[in-house]
């Protein structure tokens, strides 16, 4: 086992230990009510489904709706509303549904509900699973066939995402403002109250088919400001605060009566280098420049100084737990400024009068675009990287976009060399990120700005096509690792910086909470309050 892998596993174990019930005889409080401070009320009406709105909130959606297949804490598949599934050929999966399940409105859960939900997903665009009109076919009341609109063997790994949560048929008929008051799923909690911009309250579902939730009620309070969430925790107004800012986490940990819990890695920060840019954004086309960039960034320093140790150095971008043994296929790049200088020297980039390298009269000056999903999350990485790259003779001009719309526009125009992004893994498909961002076959169904700017080309695309068509999970992980190795080690198009944790603050009274690396898939059934 490599030191790197050992370090990653240690971090996972530490996070898990920190999250489990502390030793000692804790007794449950009489009142099992939890108040959770979450982010802004992102309620949005999907014009077709309505329920998608709630799934964006993360926690609350997961309490109300359930998916056919669940995503475990190490990204493994677990039975949900489907008890088993098999690939029956011709791009079709057959799922056997759980019996004896009822929606919160008393309606029985059958294949008709799956068809109703999937037809609406199709109308809303189909998502990554490529659900089309008529993709879901009822075989009998408890058996359903799902055939994606395009060849896609990854369906089962994809439908763990909460946007594929099953909705009670014929709900959400009303206008937007009424819709959120009636989300009806099969989950362990059911909706009691939704007050726009203020709170969403759920109560335990006594008829839940699985382990009964220990909490009687959860109040999710919308608090857009992260500092306010932490202050709410410190004032005991809330028991739980999500997305604790990394600058506060360590201090909060020292506060009596408080705990800080960190999830296993499920998110990443990375730099993508444009290899298909147009003038003047063409320097990333040169492999030597990309390799030098990759070697000149001290990732450990970023983890320490930017992420305040709420992250690990990650060389894979994909959460390491997803790749298993195959993680070792991705070597990553060490911090080696001397090697970076050597590579640039060999490529003919010579130091200019101000220390910035030049070749053929052109300065080695790059534009770093920062703004996805927002600029704040990266601060002060751009400045730190700017200093590190200057050490090897690369000039970086930082462009902070005011919001994600501006970032997307910038990306669409391809006006930048380096693109700093943070993202997360919310399904069980290890090829999700490489497929989503770097597949670039011309005319492909999912052709988007990322593939056009960063796509490595046919060799990579063939690996992704294997990902899409192999039914062997081990082969899938291996190919995903090979695709990442191509992006990171061979082509140096992606410079993974850090694998980051969800940081959560909670009162010591909160027990049984197991943080999920994918915040959207966080479950609350096992949580309870001690005296």
């Amino acid at each position, binding site marked *: 086992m490599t030191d790197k892998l050992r370090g990653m596993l240690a971090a996972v174990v530490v996070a898990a230990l920190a999250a489990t019930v502390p030793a000692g005889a804790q007794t449950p409080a009489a009142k099992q009510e939890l108040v959770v401070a979450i982010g802004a009320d992102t309620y949005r009406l999907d*014009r077709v489904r309505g329920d998608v709105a709630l799934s964006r909130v993360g926690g609350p959606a997961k309490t109300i709706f359930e998916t056919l297949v669940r995503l475990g804490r190490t990204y493994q598949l677990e039975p949900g509303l489907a008890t088993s599934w098999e690939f029956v050929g011709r791009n079709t999966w057959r799922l056997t549904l759980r019996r004896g399940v009822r929606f919160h409105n008393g309606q029985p859960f059958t294949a008709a509900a799956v068809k109703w939900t999937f037809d609406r997903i199709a109308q809303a665009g189909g998502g990554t699973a490529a659900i089309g009109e008529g993709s879901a076919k009822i075989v009998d009341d408890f058996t359903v066939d799902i055939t994606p609109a395009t060849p896609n063997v990854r369906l089962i790994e994809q439908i763990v995402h909460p946007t594929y949560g099953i909705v009670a048929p014929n709900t959400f008929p009303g206008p937007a403002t009424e819709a959120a008051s009636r989300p009806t799923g099969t989950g362990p909690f059911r909706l009691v109250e939704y007050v726009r911009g203020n709170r969403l309250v759920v109560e335990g579902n006594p008829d839940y088919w699985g382990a009964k939730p220990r909490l009687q009620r959860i109040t999710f309070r919308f608090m857009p400001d992260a*500092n306010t969430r932490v202050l709410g925790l410190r004032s005991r107004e809330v028991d739980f605060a999500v997305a604790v800012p990394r600058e506060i986490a360590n201090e909060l940990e020292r506060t009596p009566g408080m705990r800080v819990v960190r999830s296993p890695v499920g998110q990443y920060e990375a730099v993508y280098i444009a290899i298909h840019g147009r003038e003047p954004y063409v320097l990333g086309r040169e492999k030597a420049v990309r390799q030098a960039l990759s070697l000149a960034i001290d990732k450990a320093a970023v983890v320490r100084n930017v992420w305040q140790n709420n992250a690990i150095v990650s060389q894979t971008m994909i959460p390491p737990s997803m790749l298993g043994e195959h993680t070792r296929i991705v070597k990553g790049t060490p911090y080696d400024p001397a090697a970076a200088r050597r590579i640039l020297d060999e490529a003919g980039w010579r130091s200019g009068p101000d220390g910035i390298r030049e070749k053929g009269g052109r300065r080695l000056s790059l534009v770093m675009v920062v703004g996805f999903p927002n600029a704040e999350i990266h601060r002060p990485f751009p400045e730190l990287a700017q200093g590190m790259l200057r050490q090897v003779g690369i000039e970086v001009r930082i462009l902070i976009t005011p*919001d994600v719309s501006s970032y997307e526009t910038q990306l669409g125009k391809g006006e930048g060399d380096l693109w700093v992004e943070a993202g997360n893994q919310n399904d069980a498909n290890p090829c999700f990120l490489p497929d989503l961002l770097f597949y670039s076959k011309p005319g492909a169904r999912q052709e*988007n700005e990322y593939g056009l700017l960063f796509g490595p080309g046919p060799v990579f695309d063939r690996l992704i096509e294997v990902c899409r068509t192999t039914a062997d999970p081990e082969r899938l992980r291996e190919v995903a690792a090979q695709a990442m190795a191509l992006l990171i080690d061979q082509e140096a198009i992606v410079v993974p910086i850090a694998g980051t944790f969800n940081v959560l603050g909670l009162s010591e009274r909160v027990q049984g909470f197991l943080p999920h690396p994918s915040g959207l898939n966080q479950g609350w059934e096992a949580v309870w309050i001690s005296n």
Partner: protein
Amino acid sequence: MLPYIGRRILNLVPVLLGISLLAFSLSALAPGDPALRILRLQSDAPPTRAAVQKLRAELGLDAPFPLRYLRWLQDAARGDLGESYRTGEPVLRALALRFPATAQVAVASTLLALVISLPLGVFSAVRRNAPVDHASRIWALVGASMPSFWLAYVLILMFSVGLRLLPVAGHGTLAHLVLPSVTLALGGAATLTRLTRSSLLETLGEDFVRTARAKGLGSFSVIARHALQPGLIPVVTALGIRLGHLLAGAAIVETVFAWPGIGKFVVDSIYDRDYPVIQGFVLFTGIVFVLVNLLVDLLYVWIDPRIRIEAGRG
């Protein structure tokens, strides 16, 4: 008086036309594509170029700018401000739902600012260069310099975390209103205190005040009956502008206190390029400002008899 009010309300039309055109132009120039944002929010995958183009066409965003503006104007004239791209709600309804929370905190903080600043400003002017005046000027300087988000955190730390007297955030009870109102009031009160002081000092030097004193009226009587009323005109102007601003939402304070007002909603709409909401908000803000200014003008008439005569003649 009524024709004057009628004329002022008629003035609304060109003002609103002007600002709506400006806002429309700025939206068109700003980077970002609403169709792309909607699709990003709806799906777990970045949308394809084709999907973005299709939605742009559905939303009418592919039409030329003048045509889009004229269509919007036509609908707005019928009272239809369109639907929010993000939430699907009618814009008018979305704004109306959030306005009461904004109005609560705007009115409460304005009244509070007035209650603090008026006596302090008067006292400071009357006791010019006395220790109380110096203290009041220092307070005004400090109050005006404090960023509202910083003040908000300090107040939460003191009254919610430390003393546990008031809720950290939220909306619904009188207790929830206290901290956001105080946060907004303190900054405003500082400015108004200085304004009251300087305006009153100027009025105290006027001939009619000297005459009142020569008639043997007491100090309180001179200030309360003669000097204060005309001295309030600049204060009322500043108060009107401030109220107009607050009624248009206070995004930072709303964010910190999780106050479900119009400010945060509109800022999010700007981030997501939700054009119908932005347009509706600009129109709404224009109306609020014009009406508040009208109210301020009417208050002038009540405060200063000379203005009454001019308004009557006009």
